[in-house]
């Protein structure tokens, strides 16, 4: 069974500071990977997806960037945080070959002050 580990579990950061969130997937080779953002009490908004190492597609522009340095790793980052970046960040993995189901990590709660 695949497992998704996200780090850190929670972050409190200052406006204008940099951010790096990570996600590691175990138990599945070459998964499609996704980053989602969720405001408190809100729905999930897909930010990025990656179908292979080194390739990342952006879905919405939120002054964030993503990278996939390894097959099992997905990184979300920004050089300057905004107040609007606060929320819950979720990494997800899907199988290839027509499995549309997403498996989500436990998420990272980000508070920007």
């Amino acid at each position, binding site marked *: 069974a695949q497992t998704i580990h996200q780090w850190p579990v929670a972050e409190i950061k200052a406006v204008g500071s940099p951010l790096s969130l990570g996600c590691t997937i175990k138990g599945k080779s070459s998964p*499609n990977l*996704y980053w989602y953002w969720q405001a408190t*009490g*809100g*729905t*999930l*908004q*897909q930010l990025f*997806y990656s*179908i292979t190492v080194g390739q990342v*597609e952006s*879905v919405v522009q939120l002054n964030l960037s993503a990278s996939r340095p390894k097959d099992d790793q997905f990184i979300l980052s920004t050089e300057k945080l905004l107040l609007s970046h606060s929320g819950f960040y*979720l990494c*997800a993995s899907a199988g290839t070959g027509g499995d*549309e*189901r*997403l*498996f*989500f*990590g*436990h*998420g990272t*709660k980000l508070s920007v002050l």
Partner: protein
Amino acid sequence: SQWGEENLQALSIQEGEDVTMNCSYKTYTTVVQWYRQKSGKGPAQLILIRSNEREKRSGRLRATLDTSSQSSSLSITGTLATDTAVYFCAETNYNVLYFGSGTKLTVEP
């Protein structure tokens, strides 16, 4: 119903009651998924229904899909307090999974 709604919908029921949640999807899609998210956790998929299925059951869950009205529903029979969560429908379009606004279900014991 979800989608087109700016705010999370909320339902509160007693344990043992049945409940139905609805959503309308925007694009032409062949797959609708329903997810459940418990407080502070990532969502977990409950059920996936394809356009050629119209109805799908899994334990106490029943999902329907009406492609003519672009709508889907999720019913839970004999609810339990542990069913308390936010329920989202989601549709796929070119590697993007679009989630509805969600229904917050509270099941009182």
